[in-house]
């Protein structure tokens, strides 16, 4: 059985041997498109072209454009389609499931219910119960089962209804998911994707407002990415599914209804790359997930006040894209990190360490890090607001940094 799952080339044989044994009503099979055209867009504007590269040129302006330019750019590029972030995730997932028969989805309420955030809506009808699996509420075991299935070559996408629930599966994620490739001497790869919403929502209470990036970041062997726009949500989802490594994709509860125009053609976002949101000269602001929007809001105020912040959405939480970040630091010499993670041992703390270690000579001022307070998220609206970083605080911090 292990032989079936080896390599992309075998997938064509796989789909043909399985297509007659699958119930054709429930299952749409398409052989793996080996020559599928896609472009990997890099944040510095370079593009790894494939044979059908011409369309990719127009792709660049979309991805790297600053927020203010995106409206103008989209009208000049090949028209894409507008959708919400959760629909972008769904599209990415659906395309990957069509492309590769080994991709399956496991989670609570993902099948018949359509997903608690509608990310897997309609997939169960299209792909059947064996590929979109409703699990009981047993995170530890179904994450373990996903990892076991991945060991044989399947590519499960495990959905945690809320990232906080993945704490119950921490043993499986840390010991088995992260380490099996190493302890088996390279015999097994675990191409699993673990995804789910986290972050502070609207008064969801302490246990449902957790930011677990910090807990997972030291597990060796996994990659972590955080999506923030429909464009990178779809791109990262696809890249994560195609990656041979276990990837944890962090989504945010409040970002699911963001609308954006994304390209029609197949594209992926590089898993280890940061995104240049707004080039600038005075200060580098590093952020990810929901805080990107708080930062952009603060950026408007800052621009009016005469500052020129460079905003980078780091996207890749493990490993950090020190190349993009480094180039930025060398240009601006001041760094502000804005994150939703906890102050103690958070992503920001690791990022400060990484930047100080590598770019200390380029810094004109100590790195500032704005993170959430080290408290369980309170229920009361006013208190919850104060727990996370607000745009006004970002503006003050930049002013302080640029003195």
């Amino acid at each position, binding site marked *: 059985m292990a032989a079936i799952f080896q390599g992309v080339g075998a997938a064509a044989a796989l789909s043909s041997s399985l297509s007659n044994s699958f119930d054709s009503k429930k299952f749409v099979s398409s052989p793996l498109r080996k020559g599928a055209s896609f472009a990997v867009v890099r944040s510095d504007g370079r593009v790894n072209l494939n044979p059908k590269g011409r369309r990719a040129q127009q792709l660049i302006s979309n991805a790297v454009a600053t927020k203010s330019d995106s409206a103008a750019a989209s009208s000049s590029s090949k028209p894409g389609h507008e959708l919400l972030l959760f629909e972008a995730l769904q599209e990415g997932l659906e395309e990957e499931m069509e492309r590769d028969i080994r991709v399956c989805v496991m989670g609570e309420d993902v099948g018949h219910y359509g997903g608690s955030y509608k990310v897997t809506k309609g997939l169960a009808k299209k792909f059947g119960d064996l590929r979109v699996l409703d*699990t*009981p509420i047993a995170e530890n075991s*179904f994450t373990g*089962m996903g990892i076991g299935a991945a060991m044989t070559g399947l590519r499960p996408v495990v959905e945690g209804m809320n990232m906080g629930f993945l704490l119950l599966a921490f043993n499986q994620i840390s010991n088995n998911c992260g380490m099996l*490739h*190493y302890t088996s*001497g390279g015999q097994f790869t675990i191409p699993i994707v673990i995804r789910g919403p986290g972050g502070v929502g609207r008064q969801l209470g302490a246990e449902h407002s957790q930011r677990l990036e910090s807990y997972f970041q030291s597990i060796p062997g996994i990659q972590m990415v955080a999506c923030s726009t429909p464009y990178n949500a779809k791109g990262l989802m696809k890249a994560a599914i195609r990656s*041979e*490594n276990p990837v944890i994709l962090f989504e945010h509860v409040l970002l699911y209804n963001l609308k954006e125009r994304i390209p029609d053609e197949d594209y992926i976002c*590089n898993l280890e790359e940061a995104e240049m949101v707004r080039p600038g000269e005075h200060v580098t602001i590093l952020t990810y997930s929901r805080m990107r929007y708080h930062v952009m809001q603060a950026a408007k105020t800052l621009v009016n006040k005469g500052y020129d912040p460079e905003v980078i959405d780091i996207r890749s939480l493990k490993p950090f894209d020190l190349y993009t970040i480094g180039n930025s630091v060398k240009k601006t010499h001041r760094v502000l990190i804005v994150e939703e993670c906890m102050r103690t041992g958070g992503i920001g703390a690791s990022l400060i360490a990484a930047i100080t270690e590598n770019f200390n000579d380029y810094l004109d001022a100590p790195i500032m890090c704005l993170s959430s307070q080290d408290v369980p998220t309170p229920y009361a609206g006013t208190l919850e607001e104060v727990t996370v970083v607000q745009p006004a605080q970002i503006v003050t911090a930049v002013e302080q940094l640029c003195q």
Partner: protein
Amino acid sequence: MALSHLGASASRSSSLLKPLSSALSLRRPISGDNSPLTVETSVPFTSHQCEAPSRSVETNPKELLTFFRDMALMRRMEIAADSLYKAKLIRGFCHLYDGQEAVAVGMEAAITKKDCIITAYRDHCTFVSRGGTLLEVFAELMGRQAGCSKGKGGSMHFYKKDSNFYGGHGIVGAQVPLGCGLAFAQKYSKDETVTFALYGDGAANQGQLFEALNISALWDLPAILVCENNHYGMGTAEWRAAKSPAYYKRGDYVPGLKVDGMDALAVKQACKFAKEHALKNGPIILEMDTYRYHGHSMSDPGSTYRTRDEISGVRQERDPIERIRKLILSHDLATEKELKDVEKEVRKEVDDAIAQAKESPMPEPSELFTNVYAKGLGVESFGADRKEVRATLP
């Protein structure tokens, strides 16, 4: 209570050998032949929610001699590992399987290499029965390059992908959901194969086991959960850890079978039965009533929570190798001397493998960073300037 259990097994052993019939007059060469032989298991099977299989097991001289050889090899290997550990060539944790060899050998006789086996940390013998070589075992135990995991796994992390042996896991109970995941993948690809997920009586109290069992039963997965009940979970006897030590019944809605785990033929019969059952009806639990002579691991003397009398009692009454030896001798399949020669041969094999393993070098320092990530979509760790590559993670 463990002692009363021993008393029961003593009375069982009096009906140790009751060959029902030997079909043909058997030839003498020790290589054996395939003429069928029917042997009765030492005790009947006890079942829960299913029909127990018959006590009469089909076998043949060749198989019995293979059992003897394989179990003698495993026994020798574990005892050699004991000496190596005491000589400080093996460090860390070392969990030995001697006494339980019948489970590994009997299971292997009932299945193919396409069926998956996953077990916990007491995995040296299961690895060998799946086709692992002695060199790989000893080299891995000593942390050398020739080891099955290149020296980076250790005693608790033996894997053999090409014969579907999935390890080798250190955390108690964590391998059971993995095993159900393997069964899920088998169902997904419609392989007609099954997965044996082994765990101990200590792990039988883990919540994730019942969670995985629930999902397996719901989704009709071909998962066979095998509880190797050696009556002690680390240092705690089973009656002190489990309210209901009838592990084969604890699946509740899932059928179960209790098997004498010291009788390789009974294990073979049970596994065959379980495989047929799992392919048709979903998960089943097998409880192998077995015993380990060593302590839980090399750092456990094994005598603080049980008496030496108990250990030697089991060794005399129920030892799996002795049982097969008596079976072979009583059916005239080989002489006493021939069996002793096999044991000598096996001893030499083990010694040779150890010598070879000692010559294997330690892993290179650069191996520290290999296999952390698999290659895919540009996983390379660059230095800050991307001018120099600090470590390429392959």
